[in-house]
């Protein structure tokens, strides 16, 4: 926990693929199973370890356990057996009343954006700062900054229903990242978006990762994932069937280069959605 709270400046050498030695993994699952009340299995004997600054895709078909995994990490669900650790802290030991403090260190992005419908873009982002008791002048400084970063500086006072899907997702990313959490969880962040917009969103998440934030993205868009060449953990019926670490990274790639490569490889514009 204490480790999560310190806001690390972006590390210069990005993304060390082998598990960092001597460093506590940001996310660790030890033989975790999750069986729902109805008896359906969400996750079965899953173990994984994600180091600081990694960018990880959780992939698989619907119902394979991706969302279960994400929800376990933010303690929205409790594991039936095994241990879930965030920065070395066992989530089983985190008291119910302390869960909000855990979540302040985890940015979350969802397929359905989960914005507050009766607040403006500005207020939506400001809310996650108000929650942690940030002083007002800090909020006034940080919110426009982050909204400029996601490219929404002209829509500060619009309500979510006045924005396009892509713009709403940008707001939710801004909200997730405004207090620079060490961990960003995204559950199908591009699930509702067209390929062109999806790339913009992925690009944004990638930029966040470049600042040193550990990113876990759950998606069923396997083709896109493979082309992005990041660490991939594939789930099938609750089990981890593939965890590819090596050879999938190109260490010093700038955001723009990445986007150009991505566009080229996906063939956006020419053939539509890769699915």
């Amino acid at each position: 926990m204490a480790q999560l709270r310190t806001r690390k400046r972006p590390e210069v050498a990005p993304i060390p693929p082998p598990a960092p030695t001597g460093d506590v993994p940001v996310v660790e699952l030890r033989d975790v199973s999750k069986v729902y009340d109805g008896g359906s299995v969400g996750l079965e004997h899953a173990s994984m370890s994600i180091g600081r600054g990694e960018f990880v895709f959780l992939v698989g078909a619907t119902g394979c356990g991706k969302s279960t995994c994400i929800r376990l990490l933010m303690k929205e669900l409790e594991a039936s057996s095994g241990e879930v650790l965030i920065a070395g802290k066992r989530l089983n030991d985190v008291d119910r009343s302390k869960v909000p403090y855990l979540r302040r260190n985890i940015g979350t992005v969802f397929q359905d954006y989960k914005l507050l419908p009766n607040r403006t873009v500005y207020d939506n982002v400001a809310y996650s700062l108000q929650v942690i008791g940030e002083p007002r002048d800090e909020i006034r400084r940080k919110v426009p900054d982050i909204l400029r970063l996601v490219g929404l500086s002209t829509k500060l006072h619009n309500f979510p229903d006045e924005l396009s899907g892509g713009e709403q997702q940008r707001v939710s990313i801004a909200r997730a990242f405004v207090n620079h959490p060490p961990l960003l969880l995204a559950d199908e962040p591009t699930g509702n978006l067209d390929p062109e917009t999806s790339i913009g969103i992925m690009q944004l998440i990638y930029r966040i990762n470049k600042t040193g934030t550990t990113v876990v993205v759950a998606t069923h868009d396997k083709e896109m994932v493979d082309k992005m060449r990041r660490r991939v953990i594939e789930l099938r019926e609750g089990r981890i069937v593939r965890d590819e670490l090596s050879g999938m990274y190109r260490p010093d790639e700038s955001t723009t280069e990445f986007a150009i490569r991505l566009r080229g490889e996906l063939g956006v514009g020419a053939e539509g959605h890769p699915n």
Partner: protein
Amino acid sequence: MSFAFFFKEAIRGLSRNSAPALAAMLTVLLTALVLGVFIPIVQATTGTANEVRDRVVVSVYVAEDATEGERRQLAAALERTTNVKSVEFVSKAEGLAEAKRKNPEAFAEGAKLLGANPLPDMYRVVPDDPDQVSAIVDRLAPVGADGGREPSLAAIDEVRNKEEDTEKILSATGLVKILTGGLMALLVFASIALVANTLRLSIFARRREVEVMKLVGATNWFIRWPFVIEGVVVGAMGGVLAVLLLTIAKETFIDPLQSRFDLLAAPETINFPLLIVVLLLACIAVSAAGSAITLRRFLRV
């Protein structure tokens, strides 16, 4: 964060969800109105019932030939008897004057015919608890072997408590008390249920919002305070409006009548300012607590 922040959040919530808020306010207003009218009515009824019950007395007639000592002994014995609230001595003369006052026509003629005062000296005993009045009679004049009552003291001629009247009074007023009490309890329960349900609806419409707040790491009280303040505002507005309407009704209808009919100046009704304060506080407390409690379900994310 400060109170100002929560207050602003509450105002935002109210203005953005004005329809459910208005419904909740109207519910509070109506129930407060009904309660405001009903509480004094219930109190007047039970007050009247109690007043009637106070008329239950035991009359102890003093024997004509009792000596001074025996009379003193009787007075002392009456004072000592349990369940006795007060003992009043009514002399022959006083008794006659009282009877004349109650029924002037009969006595205008009667006094002439009788010539002398036929009434005995008498003690009027008022019981503490009207329901236990027969115990006093039994103590002063226990039932003898032959079935008739035997006075326990020489000075006692006869002990009476107008048994039939007493029984009627006790059973009728008892029923009235139980009925009004039960009705009052039902009404209060219905009011609380109605207000709670309306609040539940208005919060249910916003459960997604609460869910999102939990996701960004808001603590339960951080989410709850604005809702509680909303509840206070809604309750206060409904309560104030109800009190205003009640005051207007009282000033225009009840007060002019009161000077004409003593009947309406019913005994022991709650005084108006106290009623207002109680109603207002109840409105605010119920809607604030209702908001907080309803919210609990959605906070378990």
